[in-house]
């Protein structure tokens, strides 16, 4: 396998592994927790390193995962005192833990081969150099295996506890009543987020972990209202972002992790603008068509109300109606001509009158509105 292919394969696996817990982070309004966790696991790694004195020990992953859970715990404890709002709690806790990590690293900089830059920024390009050899045989890059294990772990957890996660996410009170202990689920999920972040940031850096955890799920969120579909779509979107990002990085010869983050943003933007139903274009179109429909109905009601009025000539006269409905002349003319085209009104000399069809329509819509109350 070529290095490029290996990198893309790793990227796809990382993207899917990140997007699985990411979906629940987004739905539980904890997106920024991914930001906090990806930073604080550095302290976990540093502490574990000083205990084991090895950079390859699996205890590093354990330490980092524990630190991730500890971050969540600390934030929630702080928030639980009622003295600090949730966002401020995150904003206070993670810089502190991260600062401690940086200070320890720089204090022992000579002795440690830990580089904050590489941890935070990551470089996927180096992943293929770190290879797994079994019985003297090259088995491919290590990251491929570690991330596959993490992906499998996430997959098993989410498939096994899908129903529980769903209820705990959308209705925590119901989940408690049914006996699902949302707190346990919550911390299991946070443990998964931490483990995923540790595994992923080794190869892609912590910032890309955030992009992969949050970007694909919110992109998928704009395309569906179904949780199952959202999980699958975000895995798909994540993989596409990874591959496209790599192609872009290879073309311009720039940071692979950075390109994938940028691609995540671009794909989100496209979906944000053009998504059917929830995209910006269809929202604007829907709002303007609602505005026109509302204006047409109001105009029809006005005509219906004043038909046969003593002031009829003033209220419904083509030259004076403008003052009575209080609209811009242009807009009024547009509405009048569209209603004429639909044969709901006709001109009786200077006076605007409803056609039989227009009268039926006006009465029917009026009753529809009234019946809602």
């Amino acid at each position: 396998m070529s290095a490029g292919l290996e990198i893309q394969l790793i990227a796809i696996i990382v993207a899917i592994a990140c997007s699985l817990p990411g979906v629940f982070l987004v739905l539980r309004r904890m997106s920024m927790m991914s930001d906090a966790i990806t930073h604080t696991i550095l302290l976990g790694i540093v502490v574990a390193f000083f205990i084991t004195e090895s950079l390859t020990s699996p205890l590093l992953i354990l330490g980092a995962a524990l630190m991730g859970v500890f971050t969540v715990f600390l934030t929630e404890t702080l928030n639980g005192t009622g003295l600090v709002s949730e966002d401020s709690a995150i904003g206070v806790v993670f810089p502190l833990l991260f600062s401690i990590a940086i200070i320890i690293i720089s204090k022992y900089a000579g002795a440690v081969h830990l580089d904050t830059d590489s941890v935070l920024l990551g470089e996927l390009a180096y992943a293929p150099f770190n290879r797994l050899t079994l019985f003297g045989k090259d088995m491919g890059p290590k990251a491929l295996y570690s991330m596959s294990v993490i992906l499998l772990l996430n997959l098993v957890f989410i498939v096994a506890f899908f129903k529980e996660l769903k209820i705990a996410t959308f209705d925590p009170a119901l989940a408690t009543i049914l006996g699902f202990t949302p707190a346990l689920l919550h911390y299991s999920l946070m443990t998964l987020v931490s483990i995923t972040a540790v595994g992923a940031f080794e190869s892609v850096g912590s910032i890309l972990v955030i992009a992969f955890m949050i970007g694909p799920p919110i992109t998928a969120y704009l395309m569906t209202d179904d949780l199952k579909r959202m999980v699958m779509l975000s895995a798909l979107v994540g993989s596409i972002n990874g591959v496209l990002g790599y192609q872009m990085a290879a073309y311009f010869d720039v940071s692979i992790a950075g390109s994938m983050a940028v691609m995540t943003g671009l794909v989100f933007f496209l979906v944000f603008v053009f998504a059917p139903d929830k995209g910006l274009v269809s929202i604007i179109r829907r709002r303007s068509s609602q505005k026109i429909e509302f204006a047409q109905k109001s105009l029809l009601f006005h005509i219906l109300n004043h038909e046969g009025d003593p002031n009829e000539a003033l209220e419904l006269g083509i030259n004076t109606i403008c003052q009575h409905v209080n609209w811009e002349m242009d807009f009024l003319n547009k509405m009048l001509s569209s209603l004429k085209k639909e044969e709901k009104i006709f001109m009786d000399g200077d006076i605007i009158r409803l056609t039989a069809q227009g009268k039926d329509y006006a009465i029917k819509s009026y009753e529809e509105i009234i019946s809602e109350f």
Partner: protein
Amino acid sequence: MNVFELIMTDYTLQVVSLGSALLGIISGVLGSFAVIRKESLLGDAVSHSALPGIALAFLFTGTKNTEILLLGALTSGLLSTAIIMGISKYSKIKFDSALALILSVFFGGGLVLLTYIQKIPNANQAGLEKFIFGQASTVLLRDVKIIALLGAGLLLLVALFWKEFKIVSFDIDYAQSLGFDTKKITALLFAMIVTSIIIGLQTVGVILMSAMLTAPAVAARQWTDKLSVMVLLSALFGALAGLGGTVLSSVVSRLPTGPMIVIIISLIVLISLTLAPNRGLIWRFLRQKNNKKSISADQSLANLYHLKLDSPQSQGYEIPLIRPNLAQKKNGEQIVKEQLAWLTSKNLVREVNPSRWSITDKGMEYIDTYFKEEV
């Protein structure tokens, strides 16, 4: 050499600590508004988003002048804020998700640009990365002058629009009903918060800037319920942390400044959370203990009231009769005795005979007035 002497003689240290202290004041003041509006994580997003702006400014101008790089950072910081607001306004995506997305996408874009710049032959790009972690030691006197100038402008604006910022931060609907242009005021406030974040990048870096914005305000919030006092305290805490962190990091060798500042401000937060009067945790603990005591004493009084009504007698009642459950517990009798002594001191209860108590008329009146509903 002692610390004081060091500050008095070391020119670089003077410049750097002045810069950090100014930064602390500015971010303390504007952070107060961000914290009250529950948008303190915006600082994190904006500071990360500044990176592509810095890289682009360098790419186009080729200079590493602080003001040009900061202008680039400001532009991309403002752009990212506008996009975050747009996403959470025009879709069902929540504010925090929008923050996380834009933060990582912009930072990723910054990395892409930095790696691109590194490939340009002869480009004098070294030092751009200092914005990621911040490097206070590179702060020059002219940088401090820029900080002071921008800071003075920001503080002046805060003073001018004090009333507007206050009402928009606490009750935006009310502000709108009074006819304030809330959109413009909010936009101005955001622009100012973003500017204060950008100012801090050089010293504490993009990752730790959110602490500078959040922590002083969170600490100040514990000591007061008044915005003006909170803003002043927050500025003081920010200045203290900036100064202390800088001095400590240069006295204790090889400790980076940004993290040192964050540790000090976190300590201030911790002290405020525990010790602040009224809101502080210790204060609250004592108050709860007190409440528990007085509720229990009220219970004893209420029981005496019932005893007097249900089985009247002039000899008074013994403790096991007054609080049957509590008296059986360890030290229970002692606790009840103390309560009765306290109630006696307030003339609500009278020790008729040794170890026998009865409720006084004043006590009856007290229960009648305050516990009518429950009795």
